[in-house]
């Protein structure tokens, strides 16, 4: 029981990070129907941006309040990662709209390789680690034998994720921007005829996806304290799995999928073996795509001739 609750807490934490990345995949797929393969690397890059910002704040400016530092890091990472993703969309994907079907995917794979190696060249191939920012934990129950704890770090991940998801949900469902986005998702040509700037809407979709990935990147850095240039690939594929599992194109689905993947991974590691935890995630991807391609909350894909 104690182990179960503890793993539940750990799983939700991991799942929050996956969910935040998964939204970027699912939104882009929803609106232009491409798998943005480079999104995992955008996430990795945002963690690096957060790392540099954090070091500037702590070692140069000397901010001692961790809350303030984290808040500034979060904002800076969101803004700068958005610029990165906007540039990627503008130069690597936009010219390919209307090209043959696999062209954007191949371009995205190239972009993914480019980003990972750019970070490697710019920041060096070694793992970057920072001292823990937040320590301390709440003991929930379980006494001395197996105390079930919720660390402050985990609480921060939960709260930040919840607040930003709420803000994001508001933008997508209540503002004219969100309406434009949903319109473009349904029919780009018609939306354009009705005076919606499709290019701009797609660009904003990439910006929104990037800022959520930056939140995930900052939380990842804060939670694990390490980041490496190759950290984009595996979380990227897992977040894509989450998006597919939840039903690609569905925003609540992405969050649910992320939580499920996080939970499955932690429980797998706790009860079976950590060796094969990535195999579990990849198998879920394959199994979902083969047997339930529309996901949990997605609409079935109607084949049109």
């Amino acid at each position, binding site marked *: 029981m104690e182990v179960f609750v503890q793993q539940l807490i750990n799983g939700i934490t991991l799942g929050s990070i996956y969910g935040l990345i998964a939204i970027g995949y699912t939104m882009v797929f929803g609106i232009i129907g491409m*798998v943005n393969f480079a999104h995992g690397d955008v996430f990795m*890059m945002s963690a*690096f941006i957060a*790392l*540099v*910002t954090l*070091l*500037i704040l702590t*070692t*140069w400016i000397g901010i001692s309040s961790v809350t303030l530092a984290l808040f500034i890091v979060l904002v800076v990472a969101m*803004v*700068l990662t958005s*610029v990165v993703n906007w*540039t990627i969309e503008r*130069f*690597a994907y936009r*010219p*390919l709209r209307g*090209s*043959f*079907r*696999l*062209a954007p*995917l*191949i*371009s995205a*794979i*190239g*972009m*993914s*390789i*480019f*980003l*990972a*190696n*750019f*970070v490697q*060249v*710019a*920041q*060096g191939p070694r793992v970057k*680690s920072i*001292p823990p920012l937040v320590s301390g934990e709440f003991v929930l129950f379980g006494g001395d034998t197996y105390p079930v704890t919720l660390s402050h770090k985990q609480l921060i991940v939960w709260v930040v994720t919840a607040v930003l998801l709420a803000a994001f949900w508001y933008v997508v469902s209540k503002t004219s921007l969100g309406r434009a986005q949903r319109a473009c998702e349904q029919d780009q040509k018609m939306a354009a005829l009705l005076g919606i700037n499709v290019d701009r809407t797609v660009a904003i979709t990439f910006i929104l996806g990037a800022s959520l990935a930056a939140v995930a990147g900052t939380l990842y850095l804060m939670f694990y304290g390490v980041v490496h240039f190759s950290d984009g*690939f595996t979380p990227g*594929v897992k977040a*894509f*799995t989450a998006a*597919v599992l939840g039903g690609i194109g569905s925003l609540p689905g992405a969050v649910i999928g992320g939580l499920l993947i996080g939970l499955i991974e932690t429980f797998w590691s706790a009860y079976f073996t950590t060796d*094969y935890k*990535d*195999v579990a995630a*990849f*198998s879920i*991807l*394959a199994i979902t*795509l*083969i047997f339930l*391609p529309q996901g949990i909350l997605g609409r079935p894909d109607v*084949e049109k*001739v």
Partner: protein
Amino acid sequence: MSGAAQARSLNFAAACKDAGAAAVIGFALFLPLVGFNTVPNLNNELVLQTRFGTLGTFVAIITAAAFLRTLVVAPWLARRARLPARAPGKIPHWLSRRFAPFALGFVLIYPAIVLTLTGPSGALKWIDNFGIQILIYVMLGFGLNIVVGLAGLLDLGYVAFYAVGAYSYALLAKTLGLSFYMLLPLAGILAAFWGILLGFPVLRLRGDYLAIVTLAFGEIIRLVLINWIPVTNGYAGISGVPRPTFFGIPFNANDDGFAAVFGLPFSPIYRTIFLYYLILALALFTAFVTLRLRRLPVGRAWEALREDEIACRALGINTTSTKLTAFATGACFAGFAGSFFAARQGFISPDSFTFMESATIVAIVVLGGMGSQIGVAVAAVAMVGGTEILRELDFLKEIFGKDFDPVQYRMLLFGFAMVAIMIWKPRGLVSTRDPSVFLKERKTISRDLVKEGHG
């Protein structure tokens, strides 16, 4: 002010504006990761170093590029678009007709050329790093070409079959002691079997989904190779894999070795040359089989599948078996290449079968022009040879300073090339392969301009 001068000044204002925007965006892009470097100090804590000079150079280049683009390139493109469309530049007839035999002749005498130019000790590197390395990728490219180029199924996990071939050869040769020539076909068959096994569940998927699932399968196989330590020895890999012999005569310094039997002084160059011709033969075999398959009904079905899956089904083609044969045939050649790889290296580990390898092979096929054999070969030479050449460019160290390591930029350039070529020539750099049979009536617009059929 005349009209032309007015337009020019307008252009100039627009160019200044674009340059300003590019400067701001470039600054934001490169400030955190180029402007600052994080390095560990003596206490192993990360500290910041600034590189504002490099940052300034980056931003200046971007600003200048944006300025010139608006002022010079965009008006030039607009002028060119107004001119009557010319026929696309054709490669001279004699070149396209003579290229293949000429290239074939060159690769056949390549070891001899290198030997005369550099002597036996220098030739080892040129034949091994360039010749054999490139030919392995040519062969893998030809194999994947069947799946991606002919059947139009984007397979991002192709390296899995390469790994199956390599591990099959290594394990069977070490435990059963069978020879390379017996295990080569066996490795191909095993890889083809895995191709069918992994192909079955993904048959219903199309396009992007298919690509991602094959990627997942590729990663699963690699992770199993890492974790199934009793069989595969995990990260440590398998060493001491038996090397191929000259039809029974081993390449060693013993009395029954190749050199002694033929009365030559012992040198490692014989094995390298032999391996070179072996992989050349394998690659040519792959090309030949592909050429013949394209003329068979199944080859025609692959091409039809690539063009339009729904029309294919409507015409009564069994898409299941068509896709499976494509997967199996492609996997089979990857298996051959894998067993050759294991035999050449003498050592294999999961590190050789990462996603990056799959991406490299996909890039070769895509950049060469899907379906085109010559295109794939040229792309493999350019991509693999080009990145190998980077290792040789020591003079760059004198320009950029001692710390400059061109090899680091290998994959960076590689990724950039993939993006650039997709934008510039999405149907491939070298040539495109039209279906072998088609209706004689040409469509009014080119196939390149319309969306491809699903799949």
